[in-house]
Each structure stands twice: as C-alpha cells, then as structure tokens.
C-alpha cells in the first residue's frame, strides 16, 4: 500500500487533547507519523494531500447501528449502511443484534464480520445478543461470540426484564471480561409509551413513559453490576435523573460506561409537536432540561460514547399515525454535522464533542483506533466544521430516509474518509 501524507491540517485528537496545526503520514494502512505544528518536511515522491486548513481527526466510531441485513434488507443492507457511514466520516460501525435471525450465535457474528470485510468500506463489527433470540430469558453463547469477535453484548432495544437472567448474564460475562449493555427502561412503566410523560404528551393524546422509568431500571442494573462486578454500558441514557445515578455509580468505583444518541443531544420533546414521525424515537425525546444535562455530561466526560442510533425504517413503517409508526431514525450520514451543532449552538469544545465519537468508544470497545498516534490504524476523517449544509433526506445513502434532520440547516461537512489508509469517501 502506498504512503501518503495529509498536510496543512488542523489536527484534532481527543485522546491527547491536541488541537492545532499539523500533518499525518500514513504508511501500510497505519499512521506512521503525526507532526504537530507546521514544520513538516515533505519527502520526495510522497503523495501529498493538502487539507487547506480543514480539520483532521480520527474517524468516527459508532457503536449502535441497526441494519436490515440479514432478514430485512429493504430497510438497510450492510453495504448501504457502510456507504452511509463512509460518507458521514464514520470509519467503524458496530451492528446491533436485532436482525432476523438475531445475532445470538458465533456463526452470525462471523457472518456480519465477513460481509463487512468483503465490502471493503468501513470496519464492521457485531454486537452479540445477551440472550438467545433476544428473548430475555435464556443466556446466549456469550463466550463463543466473544471469541468470534463480538464487541459487546446487548438485547438492543429490548429490556432484560427478568432480573435473574440479567444477573446471570452479567456474572457469566465476567469470565470473558465481556461488556454488557442494557437499555434502562422499566418495561412496565414504558409499555406502550411513544413519548415522554408530561404536559405535551397529554395534550397530544400520546401515551407517555415517565422519565423515572429510566432511573428505576438503571438503579436495578447498577445494583446488579455492584453484585456481579460486570463491565457495563448504559445504553442510550436520556434523562437527568439517570445521569445522577450514573455519577453515583462511578463515584462508587463501578465499571460503568454510558452512551447517548445524537438525537437526544439535539432534540427535545417539543420536536414531536406536529406529530412528525421522524421524531418518534425510542427512548422518546425528553424535556429540554434533560437535553441540557446530557450536554453537560458530555462536557464533564460522564458519557463515553455518542451514537447515531442509526435505525432505518422504510416509508411504509413511518407513514402512519405517530403512535403506530416504527420508532427510530437514520443517522450515520448526519452524525458529524449534528454533533457540530453542539459546538456551534451549545458551546461544546470541538475536542469534547469528538471524544465520545472517537477515542471514547474505541477504549470502551477495546479497539486500537480512535486516536492520532503512530501505529494506530489510519482511520481518518477530514472535515470542515463550519461549512453550512441543508440536510436532504432523499439524498442520504441509507436505504431508508427517516431522518429527523431532514430539511434542517446544519454546519459541518465531511470532506474525506480513510479506513486503514484507504480512501472510502471524498466529497
């Protein structure tokens, strides 16, 4: 593989808190040299890419991506998801196990990894189901899936309501030091809910789940973590109350991480006001106070991973009354500009918002990417943080077009994406 250098860039490396001019030399798919400052000597014969002052950062790592493949390919295939990721500056995606059949055995993990590798676009990993068929009752083959390369274990949007099962899953996973992720949502308080309980949902006539449903379940999960010593990821945290639980667990020394979807950082419950089903999400959009608390948690480093929560749903699933529409939104291609609104509108430092999109999830998943360091994979993203864009869902590469950002004016544009030193997207 040929060597090249991206020069004249603004290097953004959250893992070392570096934000400044510099250049990156890539050789054999890995970062060979990182030059901080402007004193880079251009060797003869080396391919040079002049960034012209644009930002160069590690490629984004998205640990929560749904596809339709296998089982529901019209929604999304691994190929369309990979193309969408590459266009969004996302160099690593972790596929959720809620396919049909579910990713609950090592052969399915292997299938996802082989298909992803054959596409030769972005890095594709699988998350394995924690229980067989994601039924919340019978433990899945966590050890064999771990061995097959599954990065973590989760039943996705389904809550493992059976406390005994979850305790056994957590306890058993300890033998492999495997990460278990759970959605914090009390299944009874959340049953049938399509919005957050409150004045708005009452007015709209939508059934709502109280914010406390998240905290109640999280308290249970954290008690089990304390009991079993499991490595645990709070999947899609969305309320201020749950953040307080998380902080207390951290203070006690529990090994607990958390992720949040970009949607819950960018929108609040008022966005569902006109019953637009693109805002029908799970967990539902919360109050503005919750959104502000989540942004503060990003700033404070309480949250390790921001995800796109990419959940493709074709038009036939979304063109329904709000309560009957499928929850979820696509997000791979809009992840970066959406995240940059937190910089432009909410005052988050660029490094602070990039950290849970790069080094944070890399560390959590045990990946050696997500950093600008010699020896790391040359998974890179070049972007203009200020370029104004208007999101047009029809133009997204995803097979499904259910984007809540459709028609929104955002700032931030991906200029180029490299995976293992190979360019997979150029604007």
């Amino acid at each position, binding site marked *: 593989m040929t060597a090249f250098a991206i020069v004249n860039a603004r290097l953004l490396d959250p893992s070392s808190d570096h934000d400044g001019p510099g250049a990156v030399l890539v050789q054999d798919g890995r970062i060979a040299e990182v030059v901080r400052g402007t004193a880079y000597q251009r060797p003869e014969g080396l391919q040079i890419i002049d960034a012209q002052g644009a930002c160069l950062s590690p490629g984004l790592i998205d640990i929560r991506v749904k596809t339709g493949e296998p089982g529901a390919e019209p929604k999304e295939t691994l190929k369309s998801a990979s193309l969408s990721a590459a266009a969004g500056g996302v160099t690593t995606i972790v596929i959720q196990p809620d396919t049909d059949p579910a990713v609950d055995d090592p052969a399915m993990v292997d299938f996802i990894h082989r298909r992803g590798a054959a596409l030769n676009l972005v890095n594709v990993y699988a998350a394995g189901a924690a229980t067989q068929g994601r039924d919340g009752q*019978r*433990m899945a*083959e966590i*050890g*064999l899936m771990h061995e097959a390369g599954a990065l973590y274990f989760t039943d996705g949007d389904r809550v493992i309501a059976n406390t*005994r*099962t979850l305790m056994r899953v957590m*306890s*058993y996973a*300890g033998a492999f030091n495997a990460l278990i992720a759970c959605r914090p949502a009390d299944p009874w308080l959340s049953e049938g809910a399509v919005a957050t309980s409150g004045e708005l949902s009452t007015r709209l006539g939508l059934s709502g789940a109280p914010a406390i449903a998240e905290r109640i379940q999280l308290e249970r999960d954290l008690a089990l973590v304390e009991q079993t010593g499991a490595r645990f990821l709070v999947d899609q945290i969305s309320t201020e109350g749950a953040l307080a639980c998380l902080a207390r667990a951290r203070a006690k020394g529990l090994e607990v991480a958390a992720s949040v979807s970009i949607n819950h950082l960018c929108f609040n419950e008022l966005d569902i006001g006109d019953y637009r089903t693109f805002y029908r999400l799970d967990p539902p959009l919360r109050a503005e106070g919750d959104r502000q608390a989540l942004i503060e948690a990003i700033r404070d480093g309480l949250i390790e991973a921001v995800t796109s929560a990419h959940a493709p749903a074709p038009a036939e699933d979304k063109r329904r009354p709000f309560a009957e529409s499928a929850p979820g939104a696509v997000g791979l291609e809009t992840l970066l500009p959406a995240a940059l609104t937190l910089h432009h509108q909410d005052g988050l430092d660029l490094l602070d918002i990039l950290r849970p999109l790069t080094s944070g999830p890399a560390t959590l998943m045990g990946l050696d990417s997500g950093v600008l360091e010699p020896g790391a994979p040359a998974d890179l993203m070049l972007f203009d943080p200020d370029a104004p864009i208007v999101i047009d869902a029809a133009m997204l590469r995803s097979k499904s077009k259910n984007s809540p950002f459709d028609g929104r004016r955002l700032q931030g544009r991906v200029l180029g994406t490299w995976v293992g030193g190979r360019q997979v997207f150029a604007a």
Partner: protein
Amino acid sequence: MSQTTDLADRIKERLVPFPRPHFLSAGDLNPPAALALLDLADEFVAHNRAMDGRPTLDLMAGRTVVNLFFENSTRTSSSFEIAAKRLGADVVTMPVTASSVSKGETLIDTAVTLNAMKPDVLVIRHSASGAADLLSQKVGCAVVNAGDGRHEHPTQALLDLLSLRRAFGDVGGLTIAICGDIAHSRVARSNVALLSMMGARVRLIGPPTLVPGDADRWGCEVFHDMREGLEGCDVVMMLRLQLERMAGDLVPSTREYFRFWGLDREKLAWAKPGARVMHPGPMNRGVEIDSDVADDLSVSLIQDQVEMGVAARMAVLAALSLRNDGAVR
C-alpha cells in the same frame, strides 16, 4: 498361615472405631481418622483383588444395612451394596419409587418405620440438603450420607482421597483443581473440606454462574479461566454439569461449556506434566470431559475411583459398626 488369613488379620488390626456415630459430612473426620480409614481401605482393596471366589469377610455378619435412595444412583447404590455384602452384612436396597415414600410418606415417617426394623446402618441419598442429618436425629442406628442435595457426599471425598493417595503417595502438597459445576456439587463441597484438611491446595474453576459467590471463603483459590486455574495442578477433578438441578440456564449451551470448561487434551496440557484426571461419574462425555482423556488410563483415575469406592465404603461401614456396638466380628 495362608495369605487370606494374613489379610484378614491385617484388616482386624487396622480396624478402628469411626470417630462419630454417623458419617454425614467430611467434617466428621479429622486427619488421623481419615488416615486410619485409608489404611483400612487399602487392606480392603487388597482383599477385594484377592477374593477370587473366596468367601466374604464376616466383619458385619448378622448386621443389616439399608440403602435408602430417594434419588436414582445405580453407581453409588451398587457400590454401597457390594461393600456391605463383602463385609457379610444383609443388605436391603430401597429405591424411592418402589417405597411408600412415593405415596406421600414423609422422610421422618420413613425413618421411624425403618428404625422399627432395627437396621444397623442406614445409607441415604436425598435431593434435599440436610436430609441425612435430619434422618440421623430420628433413628438409633448409624447413618451414612450418600449425597444430600448440593450439600455433601463424604464417602465420595474419602474414595477420591484414597485414589489420590495410592496414585501420589501423599496428598499433602498436591495442587488439586476441582472444575465445573461447583455450585450444584456436593462432591466439590466434601472434597474441598477433606482435601484441604489433608494438606492439599484446592482450586475451584468454573464459569462465574456455577461457582458460588462466597467460594473464595472456602479456603480455595477461585478461577474462571481454565488456563490460569490449571497451571501447576497435579490433579484435575472434573464435575458433572448438573443440568437437572439448574433453575433456568446458567451456561448458554453445552457446546460453549465444553469449549471453555470441558477437559480435553489441550486444556490438560496446561496442568503440570503427569497430572491425573478424576471424575465422580456419571460422565457427560463431550460436555465436561472428552472421551479421549477420560479413557486414557495413563492419566485417568476414573476407573480407580470406582474400585476405591467399594473399599472406602467397606472401611466406613466396618468402622461405624465397630463404633456403634463394638460387635464387629
């Protein structure tokens, strides 16, 4: 004097009373008592091997041993039956399904009824932990615990100790790994107590869901990784995966269990060179142990354990009889 007479004399010389009126737990023994039983059992091994059609011993002639098995167990039941018969006792084996227990009679009712028949020894196996203890409080004869729930199986521990002493000379200083379904294993509990008492270093290895949370307080090292746990071990004692005792699944599948905790050649190579393998039986081949290992007599002590079972139980029955009425002849 003939060889047989020599052996019978040696047995009588070795015969000492059991230290307690019942054998309910490995904790009923102390090191001198355990060694005395092992010495006696060694003589019974020699006797059993030399029998060759010659008459049984008459140490328990006229005594009655009742085998009361509330759980199916051909192996242990037969072992006790043969042991008692070789000592000259009359043996009644009562499987549960053929007894009035299956008609709703309580354990205590059964005990009182049996007690009226004046047996000398009751051998009991029951699915409830503590059943043997309860029975011992209600009868006037000696009670031997042949396995109560997930509590204890002391004669298994004694026969394992006998097998190990014959293979290694002395268990003091040995490092012994007990692997697998520790949580449901009465064999593990009895062995941990007895082997530790005799100076062995005992390790427990198994998935976290099958190792009790407080096992590290048993005086053992606990491992969840076979490679780490087996390193430096002289003995690898595999346990049966007791799927029937599990409420809900504690391991995802038997194939995954075998992959990580089943003993095969590759994993055995992680133990000390020359390490020996044990299993209390019955084995789930391909689940907790590979046939290739189980059937290799150069490493496996499993057949020895079966043979030692009869001798160890003979020693226990004879010593208990001596203790309780001094009338062993």
